[in-house]
């Protein structure tokens, strides 16, 4: 494990290695997250990106937004591709280099789940960053296994009946050394976690909540506020899992009712009848309460 000094970890990085000119919607949380991650990782980094919104808006020929090496092939195989890059660097005695595999929730938790599980289990020295925008945004907001309970998508018009798949925990049970969650509003924390993750040898998993103005139904200027509210309503706990033990949980001293989060997003509008919350809202509050209990937020 490579050592990094506190001041290096805490330094905010702005290098524009994920540069202007991408085709993301205004206020895109994923574009923001991608730049924060790339800048934190630095120039000596290879980005392997899964098919998805990020890939589409950042890698059109001939003017992609990446300024670090970029490799994309398919939707469900980014973990394996990154594994291959890592294997090649080993075989050729090249490096050290940061290898980051990244994708949205679909390519991470659904179609790419087998691949990511394989990468974790084989112990490749790769950081996987999941930009979680809670649905298949690239194809027009269809439900994914990260779509939260109650959220409306084009394939769950009545609201999603199931709860969100808990990938950080699933990653952790693979026995990988570092797992963390983060949100775009706290860029210091996010960049710190990227750098910290890269100090660990082996597979790392960073789960970033990335608000999607289009899919969540909010104006672009609210992306940061909403991601913050996800934390403050305890719907998205922020923590690290280092060598299997949950740690550095971000406490939420001033907890807010989930309504404050839901109210800002059209995808939850149907949960309120004439402004009055329906039973589903109570259910969502229950999810928050369980997080509070589980992580002692």
């Amino acid at each position, binding site marked *: 494990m490579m050592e990094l000094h506190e001041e290096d970890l805490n330094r905010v990085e702005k290098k524009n290695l994920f540069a202007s000119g991408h085709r993301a919607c205004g206020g895109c949380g994923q574009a923001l997250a991608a730049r924060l991650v790339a800048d934190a990782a630095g120039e000596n980094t290879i980005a392997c990106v899964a098919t998805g919104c990020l890939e589409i808006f950042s890698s059109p020929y001939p003017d992609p937004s990446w300024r670090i090496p970029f490799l994309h092939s398919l939707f469900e195989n980014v973990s394996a591709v990154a594994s291959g890059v890592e294997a090649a660097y080993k075989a050729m005695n090249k490096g050290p280099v940061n290898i980051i595999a990244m994708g949205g929730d679909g390519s991470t938790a659904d179609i790419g789940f087998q691949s990511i599980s394989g990468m974790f289990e084989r112990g490749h020295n790769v950081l996987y960053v999941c930009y979680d925008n809670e649905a298949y945004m690239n194809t027009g907001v269809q439900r994914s296994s990260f779509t939260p309970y109650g959220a409306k998508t084009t394939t769950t018009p009545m609201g999603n009946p199931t709860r969100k798949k808990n990938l950080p925990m699933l990653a952790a049970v693979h026995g990988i050394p570092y797992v963390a969650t983060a949100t775009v509003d706290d860029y210091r924390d996010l960049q710190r976690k990227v750098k910290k993750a890269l100090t660990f040898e082996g597979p790392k998993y960073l789960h970033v909540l990335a608000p999607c103005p289009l899919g969540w139904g909010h104006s672009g200027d609210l992306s940061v*506020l909403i991601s913050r509210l996800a934390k403050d309503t305890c719907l998205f706990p922020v923590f690290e899992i280092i060598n299997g033990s949950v740690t550095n949980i971000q406490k939420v001293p001033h907890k807010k009712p989930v309504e404050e989060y839901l109210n800002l997003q059209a995808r939850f509008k149907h949960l309120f009848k004439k402004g009055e919350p329906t039973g589903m809202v109570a259910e969502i509050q229950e999810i928050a309460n369980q997080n509070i209990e589980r992580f002692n937020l």
Partner: protein
Amino acid sequence: MDKLPLGLALDLRRVVPYKTGSWRTMKPLYIMQTPPCTHSCPINNDIRGFLRVLADKQDYTEAWHILTRTNPFPATCGRVCPHPCEDGCNRRDFDTPLAINSSERSVGDYGLEHHLEHRKEVLATRKEKVAVVGSGPAGLSCAFHLAKRGFAVKVFEAAREPGGMMRYGIPAYRLPKDVLQREIEAILKLGVELECNVKVGVNIPFDQLRHDYQAVFLGLGAQKGATVGIPGEDARNVFTGLEFLKAVNIGKAPEVGRNVVVVGGGNTAMDCARVAKRLGADVQIVYRRTRVEMPAITAEIDEAMEERIMFRYHTNPIKIITDEDKVVGLLCVQMELKEADASGRARPVPIPGSESVIPADTVIMATGQEVDYDGIDLAKRENRWISADEFLMTSVDRVFAGGDAVLGLETVSAAIGQGLRAATAIEDYLEGHVESSLASPPVVYFKDLNSYYYNRKKRISKEAIPVHERLKSFNEIYPPFDPGEIVQEANRCFSCGLCFDCKNCLMYCPDNAVNLVPATGRYEFDYDFCKGCGLCVRECPCHYIQLTLEK
């Protein structure tokens, strides 16, 4: 020709970025806004500005220059101003307002200790000469600003020393004389000519000034103490508030005896009472109404009470009882309040048969002040105050006026503010163009801020020295902030309406359309790429960014 790589592989160092700026319908702009402190300051001091240099650079010299850009009396105002700025401060709705007044005092003192000199705005001296009548806060402020702008200014002062109310009306425990003296000297260093012991209208005819000078500013103040006109006022040991304060301030304190009664509820009354107390007397304040109606600054009243001055409300003097020509007591009647009168305050009405005598060795009538118009004739309002238009020009051509003489009884800061405005008006007048002071940008209120990014932190406040200590001397009762405390306090400033380098716009822009310009250290938008999503506007803590329609 050398071929491109196979399979659409691409050399990323050759990429020409696609310009997403064309997607924009709304456009973010960095626009400086007016902070509420400046807005509520009669002098419009750049409070945010001087606090920032303290917070960012701990640069007291720069802070002093920023303050004195508008106000030549920071050390003075830092002591005597009732600081409406702090009432405006947006932190009031968050935790507690900034200690702006104490900070100003420290910066002012720093300027004095380090003999900082004012900078002229215009180095060339202009041909026009301006006469300023009265060296009070209004007069000196006007002279100061005119001098900085290159005018030849001469100040005429009736008294033996300059300063007006600041020197003769304010006791030393509130404003040490040397502080005032040095701030005045700093002003004179700009080349302002001062002639004392000259009463315009008496020693020189008013018209001669108008003849000799291209413009005249009247900062006459309200120097005449007004009495209520009850029997016995002519007795020895009966003073108007101003007489009394002036006497003490020039070191000729009268023998006040054991019991002193002060009549009135204004600041002068408070000052008189507290001065008398320091002269060793038992002091009572007699007022017709209740504390609520008292015009004096709350702090003044509180301090007076701390200093164990007796307040007699609903009490009205009818007659000063004398033994030969010496005061022995004050006959008063109890009042009750009836429906409000013209002044909007409850109207006091005597209760029959409630007369009583308050024993007194000295009676001080702090019951109002008037302008001394001796030899100066111009239009008045309410038959008391000089009437001036919005540019502070009086009914007489080329003659401007400001301060108490125009405002009625107001604060030192208000007078300084008018001096400043008059200077601008005179400049404009002499240059023959209309009032040039720009309409200031909108004021930022708490609701406009994104307070998430600010931390709660209580303001620093200093305990006044204990009463028994205070009363032993005329020393100041509040110790100054030490430099560390000032910086700490300055750091609490929200910097309402002006960037304080929080980096939010830089870090949060999903399109990297915000750049830090190394040369200026300022941020600027890259409109080639900005999509106008408004994230920066939303996350700017201090409302420095505005979203405007793309034109």
